[in-house]
């Protein structure tokens, strides 16, 4: 196991980048129409609940990562194979996000470049950074969150000045009633991106300040929910629900509309940077969770030996995962309420219940 520690502030930043990583770029909750932002906001409440499950498990087993307490709760015979499934889940999650980031990048700015090259560069970079340890990942995140925050504020400011924001495009609120909003919340926004935060169940034992760290985690989930909701509302207010709903990369379309006096325009690079940084950290954390889980299950002392092999697996899985971007998105919607739901929510709930039962029976005699 690695000895490195992460501070609550760093955990906050990592969760924030992880939650927003790919979500901020994509169309979210479009089935709720103009009320997508509302659905995301409601979803955040669900996200907090999900994070509470992880935190409860962490409080019960503060020294162990996810794969560790699975074995502690379920016993080795059941826990070990389940841990193995989690490795596959993390690899798959990383591969999906890698593919998605690569696809977005290629369809928006580098249409001639083969996706394997783009993904390989990304994976190799992540391999380099993970080799340096979680501390380096966290500190790098600190630098880039500042960059992205500055770009974000600048973009909002410029959008305001360009006069492209039209709040009336968000009205009426709940024109179709609460029904679609609730439905979208249940089907999409609770699950995405909040159930992927399960990765952090592998990282929580590295916290150097437990209680503050937990608070920072909740704050990060809440903040990311608010920011996602805000960015979705912004996209709709700028583009209108039709264009935003159709767009594969609405944030880019939004930023492209900035045109102040024919001079301040063409700020695509802001979005490209956000895409690359967000995707980098999202994949890196899935990747790291997979590496840690594997090191834990197979009792490998130095997890660094696993980084490159798992990186190559992620790269090839990302290539095989689907034949096209459409398939990728379609699969994503199905997986969200099946695989991701199981691994992100149902199994942890079950684990919590089992741990509770164990403790209850254990403490009675």
């Amino acid at each position, binding site marked *: 196991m690695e*000895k490195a*520690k992460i*501070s609550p*502030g*760093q955990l906050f930043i990592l969760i924030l980048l992880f939650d927003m990583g790919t979500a901020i770029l994509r169309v979210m909750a479009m089935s709720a129409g103009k009320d997508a932002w509302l659905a995301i906001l409601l979803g955040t409440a669900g996200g907090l609940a999900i994070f509470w499950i992880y935190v409860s498990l962490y409080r019960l087993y503060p020294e162990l990562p996810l794969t560790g307490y699975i074995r502690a709760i379920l016993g080795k015979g059941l826990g070990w194979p389940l841990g193995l499934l989690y490795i596959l889940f993390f690899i798959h999650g990383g591969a999906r996000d890698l593919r998605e980031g690569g696809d977005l*990048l290629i369809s928006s*700015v*580098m249409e001639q*470049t083969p996706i394997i090259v*783009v993904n390989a*560069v*990304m994976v190799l*970079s992540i391999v*380099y*950074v993970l080799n*340096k*340890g979680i*501390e*380096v*990942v966290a*500190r*790098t995140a*600190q*630098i*880039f969150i*500042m960059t992205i925050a500055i770009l974000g504020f600048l973009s909002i400011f410029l959008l305001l000045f360009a006069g492209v924001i039209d709040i009336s495009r968000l009205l009426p609120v709940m024109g179709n009633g609460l029904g679609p909003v609730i439905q979208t919340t249940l089907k999409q926004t609770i699950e995405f991106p909040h159930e992927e935060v399960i990765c952090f169940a592998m990282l929580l034992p590295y916290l150097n300040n437990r209680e503050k760290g937990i608070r920072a985690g909740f704050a990060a989930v809440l903040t990311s929910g608010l920011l996602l909701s805000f960015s979705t509302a912004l996209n709709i207010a700028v583009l209108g629900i039709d264009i935003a709903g159709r767009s594969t990369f609405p944030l880019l379309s939004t930023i492209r509309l900035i045109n102040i006096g*024919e*001079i301040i*325009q*063409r*700020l*695509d*690079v802001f979005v*490209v*940077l956000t895409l*690359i*940084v967000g995707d*980098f950290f999202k994949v890196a954390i899935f990747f790291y969770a997979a590496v840690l889980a594997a090191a834990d299950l197979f009792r490998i002392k130095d997890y660094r030996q696993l980084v490159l092999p798992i990186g190559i697996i992620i790269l090839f899985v990302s290539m095989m995962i689907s034949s096209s971007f459409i398939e990728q998105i379609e699969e994503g919607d199905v997986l969200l309420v099946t695989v991701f739901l199981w691994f992100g929510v149902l199994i942890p709930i079950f684990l919590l219940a089992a741990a509770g039962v164990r403790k209850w029976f254990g403490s009675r005699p």
Partner: protein
Amino acid sequence: MFFKPFVRAIKKRKKKEIVHELGFHEDDQPLEQDLNRTVERIKQELGNSPDVIIRTFRMDIRPHQRVAVIYMEGLTDIEKVNDFVAHSLLFKQNEKENENESSMSSDPQRIFDVILNRALTVGDAKYLNNWNVMMHALLSGDIAVFVDNCEGCIIGNLRGGERRPVTEPETEVNIRGPKDSFNETIGTNISLIRRRLKSPNLWMESMRIGDITQTDVSIMYLKGIAEDRLVEEVRRRLKDIRIDAILESGYVEDLIQDQTFTPFPLVYNTERPDVVAGNLLEGRIAVLVDGTPNTLILPTTFSQFFKAAEDYYQRVEFTVFMRLIRYFGFFVVMLLPSMYIAVTTHHHEMIPTPLAINLLAQREGVPFPVFFEAFLMEAAFELMREAGTRMPRAVGQAVSTVGAIVLGQAAVEAGIVTAMMVIVVSFTGIASFTMPGFTLTTSARLIRFPMMIAASTFGFYGIFMCTILLVAHLTSLRSFGIPYLSPFAPFGFKHQKDAVLRAPYKTPATRPGLTGGRQEISNQKDGVPSSDQNDQTSEGVKHDT
């Protein structure tokens, strides 16, 4: 890493041979009693070098005992030798010491007492009886006084000879602030620092490093402010050095830094005593090396290279502005050429339309691709720069003029390169001169080239991936256990007071985390978070080879 043991092996072998050849004796040897044999031995060990001056005479109080004064020509202040040694030994004695003659004659060894206590008018003089120490003192420019049939000798510090005077700093130029700089003599350098810090807590340790050069190296720190563990670590790393020669502080820097292969400097060096004093007050440690004006300061952080000494003398607003300009300059040096390549070869949509048309017009008829054009011009610039540094001063003007005119204007007029490229390259060049910590500029200049390759291959994607890797590399670096990128990552809010910003002295300031006990002292500069401190120093120890 993998060639280091190899080098060590060579050094070890060499050392033994050389020790025997040159007659440096490992063990403590007493001096000869017989003066003739002493003189002969010194002559022999130094290979009859003509710069050994041996002056023998007889003192009136002891006419039967010969006295010899030995020193190295050029290392010793000859006028002082004449005034204080020869004069006092030869003449003064006549008048004063005749009465005591009888009492003295009984013990030949007592003559040293007389010389030391009554005759010799040299401030720093001592008796010793150790051949190696004597030889080293002699080679350092001290004088040695021997008396026939007496054991031991007297060493007097009359070091002198030709030295460069204390002049204005040549590389770290300031508008406001002190104008003195270090020179090649360690004693002078130490005095320049002490003059600024009149505190009994300014402690200093000396050691000799370099099997042949026997260079004086001193560690300086403020006791109670510098962390003891850090001092111990520096001491340990310096003691571990095994090398034949230390000719400049760069040797030491290379041997004590945390990581060898990185384009970034992990030890700060300066030739300004006020910078050293300021850093000592922040709890850092200075390593002075004899024979060079460049003094090492450690541990260092990335942000330190953007701080000029003047920052602390100028107004706060101005300082903050200048620092922002320097950071901007750093990014320009590193990224501007690659950004230009990315924009003109991959992301045409990001150029405003009128500029795009202008660039397109310039590009018409230019035979080279943008990447090659940029590479050509950057290489030309680096050539000119290197030529400017190495060439004799007399032809300096000619080269820079020829370089600017021929390479810039003529190339554009001939249609070989675009005017825009010349603007980009020269802007990059100018920006590279903004940083006070010159060593970091070199890093940026080096990194620029891989960036350009990445930009021409992947456009902004390449640049951003390179930047992420670069930042990751920077965050993984440590200088004596201190994270290199602090206080940005790990982020310390308290320590932002002297990173990009500089808080006015009136605001209560905290000392950087690397200091020992007293945190809330007077007004301080710089900051490194203390939270990370504990396990880092120890980790730094482990990493060391």
